[in-house]
């Protein structure tokens, strides 16, 4: 997925991913990416005829890609998935699979495997009968069905459980069966709707790696929906961050974390400190932002347009350095520790700085205990590159 570099969201480029906001006109560049495996073209969806759940969605998914739709509940990600599966009909726009519109193709003819949130394993059938279901529908020969079932069960490491009923399996095992069932008939595309939501944390992390391994082994295209950012970062080739029916940013995990394009993405992916200010000078890639009552901050220009406009500075807690050497960093401020929380691998501190008292810093617990106490006066600093000036949302 190296080729799928995140593009500035206002400048979609052919061959890769593109996601544009509803306000942006023009779709000429779309025609360049004619080889997209799945394409959402100008999709709108409303349930009540008033509010749009999905607003003008344009999204291309490459063959073999693991794409995650990430967003809070009600952001339109599950609706988008259901439209792809065929259970919801777009109010406007068209969805293409391998270049052909699937507008009038019923769900059972789309050849799309799906894993549901609550697994939806048929309770009155054994595991094997569940797996045989899509194969029997396709009228495969009995011997072939048996071979495929065995392969699928081995794939999810459940070879010995074929004769059991779903109710006799643990949550993790049911999840694996659901996964096997969605893969057993070699679908073109596999959709997963928050499949790990019901599992406990440890099992969830194990299953994330499992799904990732299966995806790599089979090379199948996966569209995955979740509201868990950790899950999205672990598994995906690309992540589409949904909010309010619009894709806010679509990028590879590292890109998304390191270079969020707007305040929502910065806030939603990982932890984030926000400083509100006004641009006072632009200097190529960097700018100077005045924080009222605190002074000026050097920041990276991301999407602020001009001097005089308000901006939100986004700064990751782990990028803040404690007691920097004088002159080593462009941004140095004195602060006061309000609260210290010991978390084992790191120490988290809430400090007052720049007129804000909810500023969080994270200090790795790598060289003995960090000496911080509530009420202590400290100095903190950060580079201009780590501090991103974003358009306020």
């Amino acid at each position, binding site marked *: 997925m190296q080729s799928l570099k995140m593009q500035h969201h206002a400048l979609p480029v052919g061959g890769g991913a593109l996601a544009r906001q509803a306000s942006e006109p023009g779709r000429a560049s779309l025609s360049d990416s004619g080889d997209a495996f799945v394409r959402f073209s100008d999709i709108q969806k409303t349930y009540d005829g008033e509010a749009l759940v999905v607003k003008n969605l344009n999204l291309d998914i490459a063959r073999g890609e693991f794409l995650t739709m990430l967003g809070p509940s009600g952001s339109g990600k599950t609706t988008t998935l259901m439209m792809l*599966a*065929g*259970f919801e009909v777009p109010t406007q726009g068209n969805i293409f699979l391998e270049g052909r519109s699937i507008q009038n193709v*019923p*769900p*059972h*003819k*789309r*050849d*799309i*495997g*799906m894993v*549901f*949130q*609550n697994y*939806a*394993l*048929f*309770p*009155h059938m054994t595991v094997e009968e569940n797996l045989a*279901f*899509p194969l029997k*529908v*396709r009228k495969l020969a009995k011997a072939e069905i048996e071979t495929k079932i065995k392969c699928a069960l081995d794939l999810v490491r459940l070879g010995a459980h074929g004769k059991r009923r779903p109710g006799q399996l643990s949550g993790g095992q049911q999840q694996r069966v659901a996964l096997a*069932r*969605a893969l057993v*008939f070699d679908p073109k595309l596999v*959709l997963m709707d928050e499949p790990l939501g019901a599992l406990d944390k440890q099992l969830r992390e194990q299953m994330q790696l499992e799904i990732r391994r299966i995806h790599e082994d089979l090379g199948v295209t996966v569209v995955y929906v979740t509201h868990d950012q950790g899950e999205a970062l672990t598994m995906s080739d690309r992540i589409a961050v949904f909010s309010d029916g619009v894709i806010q940013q679509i990028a590879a995990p590292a890109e998304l974390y390191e270079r969020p394009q707007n305040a929502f993405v910065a806030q939603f992916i990982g932890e984030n400190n926000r400083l509100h200010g006004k641009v006072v000078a632009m200097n190529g890639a960097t700018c100077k932002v005045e924080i009222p009552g605190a002074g000026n901050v050097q920041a990276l220009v991301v999407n602020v347009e001009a001097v005089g406009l308000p901006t939100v500075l986004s700064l990751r807690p782990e990028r803040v350095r404690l007691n920097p050497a004088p002159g080593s960093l462009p941004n140095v401020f004195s602060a006061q520790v309000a609260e210290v929380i010991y978390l084992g691998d790191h120490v988290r501190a809430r400090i007052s700085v720049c007129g804000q008292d909810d500023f969080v810093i994270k200090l790795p617990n790598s060289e003995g205990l960090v000496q911080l106490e509530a009420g202590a006066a400290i100095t903190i600093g950060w580079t201009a590159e780590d501090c991103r000036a974003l358009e306020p949302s």
Partner: protein
Amino acid sequence: MATVAVQVAGGSDGIPLRLKLQRVEHRRTLGAFTLVLPVVLFVLIAFVWPIGRMMFNAIHDDTLLTLMPRTTSALSAWDGKDLPNEGAYAALVEDLKQSWAQKTTGVIAKRINYELPGAGGQLTFSARKVSTVSAGSYKAALIEVNPLWGQHDIWSVLKRGHSAYTGYYLLRSIDYQYGAEGQIVASPPQNAIFRDVFLRTFGISLGVTAATLLLGFPVAYLLATLPARTSNLLMIMVVLPFWTSALVRTAAWGVLLQDHGVINDVLIGLHIISRPAELIFNRVGTVVAMTHIQLPFTLLPIYSVMKTISPSYVRAARSLGAGPFYAFWKVYFPQTLPGVAAGCLLTFILCLGYYITPALVGGPADQMVSYFVAHYTNEDLNWGMASALGAILLAATLLLYYVYNKLVGVDRLKMG
């Protein structure tokens, strides 16, 4: 090992752990028992005891034993081949005299009539004349008073009266009776009606159950899948008749179905038929009215099961390549079966006991077992027959319930 030690030795106070647990549990059990005690007493007094007592009547009848004690005891030694000996006739004379004096002859005659139609009258006649019979040959004298006493089968009946327990009523209920020699024979055709009645009862119940299932299943599906606001409205329409008495609804069907009722008038007015169709006082009227009353009983358990079936099952089936009907039939329908079984069982069992509806909108050939139970209880005052018919119906119901429990499991029975 530590746990084992504690279990054996108990806590610091030396009381074994098991005993402590029992004490705590005992207190809780007592509390629970106090809560259910009133209803247990109510059920025992108002349900179990009267029904048990009634069932007992089906096999217990001591009329002859108490009212003709001398005769029945004299006959206990009778071999049943020839006519009894002189002693039995003497005892009979004594018993008849006593019954005439105590005015219990009618009761005895009625009991004799069950098994030997017409013999009761002759017995009453004999009892009136018996004062003229004096010592000597009681046998010849009695046979002269009435030839009945020269017949074998009356003595056979009286001999069976020596036992307070009789299989007569149960046998009659399945069209058997005792022959002259005390053997079990098929009832004569004019008495052999009960197998037909039971078959009819099961047939009508089965038909009504099937009709409610066919009508109710689609409605239950709609109710379970529609958005809440619409389904609530529909639900009110389904349960509204539920709140009206069955008697009122049956009477309403009378208005609709009679020869010059709404339905016939409309059909004639539209020139679809020229003469009124016979819709009432026959099987059609019975089944239609019963189906109407039973519909919610079948529908609601199905609905409540359907409510619990997530729409994602059918979606999963569709995404796996199944067409809409295949997905419904292979994935959705099997999951509704506990509800279908519960609803059908409920309706079938309730139908078995129907009385008022067949009585009001059915013809003579549509009367079910309950009609005969009521008839024997209220008109014939033959409680033995009423109890025997009821007992067989109850046994059939319990058998059905047992089969259901084996097949589906009562714990999956859901109402409303």
